[in-house]
């Protein structure tokens, strides 16, 4: 059996970076921090709140996300959406992901 710690380290390594792509894709529809956390979890991209919130700001700083404060509701929320630049990056990353997927399939099929 694989031991717990070894498994979690390798899974973490493999998934690192996928959250960024998932965010860029999901945020084509504007959304705010907590709702995004929830949505990511339900779509199979479990991520910690203390990783996601700083990540959103980092992506905003890099110009991949645009953000606006929505103050119409009683609780003001910061809504993020993917920018042009973010969409372009999402495109490249998605393509890379499919190429990797194909490569893995070939590997497994060829053995």
């Amino acid at each position, binding site marked *: 059996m694989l031991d717990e710690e070894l498994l979690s380290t390798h899974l973490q390594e493999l998934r690192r970076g996928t959250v960024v792509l998932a965010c860029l894709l999901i945020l084509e529809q504007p959304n705010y*921090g907590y709702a995004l956390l929830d949505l990511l979890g339900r779509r199979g991209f479990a991520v910690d709140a203390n990783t996601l919130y*700083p*990540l959103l*700001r980092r992506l905003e700083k890099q110009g991949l996300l645009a953000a606006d404060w929505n103050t119409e509701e*009683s609780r003001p*929320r*910061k809504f993020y959406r993917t920018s042009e630049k973010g969409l372009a990056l999402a495109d490249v990353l998605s393509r890379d992901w499919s190429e990797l997927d194909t490569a893995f399939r070939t590997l497994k099929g060829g053995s």
Partner: protein
Amino acid sequence: MTTTSALIDRYVDATLRRLPERQRPDIEKELRASIADAVDDRLDAGSDPADAELAVLTELGDPARLAAGYADRPLQLVGPALYLDYTRLVTTLLATIVPAVAAAVGLVRTLQGGTALHVIGDTLGAAFTAGVHIAFWTTLLFVVIERVPALRRAPARSWTPDALPEPPSRRARYGELVTETVLLVLITTFVLLSPVVSSETDAAGDPIGVLSPWLWETGVVHLFIALVVADLGFSFAKYYARWNVPLALAGSLVGVACAITLIWLAANDRVLNPAFAEAAGWPSALPRWINAGLVAISIGTLVHAVAEGIRRARRR
């Protein structure tokens, strides 16, 4: 909207305190909204308000870690990009400056005529202080570089195979071995002949040895020569036999023992014969200078033996 509790206030404060002033208002609003959303979610699921808050804050984790994420601050003193440069600089500085400081202090203290214990104590103390300073300030420098992005952006020197250390050629090491042997034979001959062959004679016409008769009376001279011969033996063993830990350790220990014996003899003025200095009409400062020179040479040998041991051990 839930009223924020004292616990949430404390959490938010603890996070914001670690952030630059200009980021605070925006992050505070967003963080509070996110926490409130998460708490509401749990309340809707039927959780008790106090439990909901505790659970949400526990999930968010250490505010210091959260703040580091917001500020994009590294959670390490020196990161992998700089670590190798850091260790190389520290090792180089330690290997050059510490021995230099030790030799200088040892020399000065010997010239001032301190006792052996004082000379050794002061030398070790100065070496230790120098080492601590080097380690501390270099680390601090790299910690700053790690945290100031403008300094970090400098293009990293890329590594090429040219940087690999050259193995010392066997011929060069053979040269060292021959030199060592010749020196040893000359010094031993000089030491053993010194009581009987001398430029000065006493009133009875007997030669006055240049080395202190105390060395022969106590047998220390034989101990010293035995150590020096053993040291040479280890040099040969190192050259011809395969390197292994016990051999290297024994060799280094003998080398260190040689050097320390000589330091002790010189610092206590047991090397030269005062009667010879008087007969030859030496200026009174000369014996002290010779003692100081012997101490300096011994410290140099000491440092060399230790450095060589470390270097060889590392290459295996």
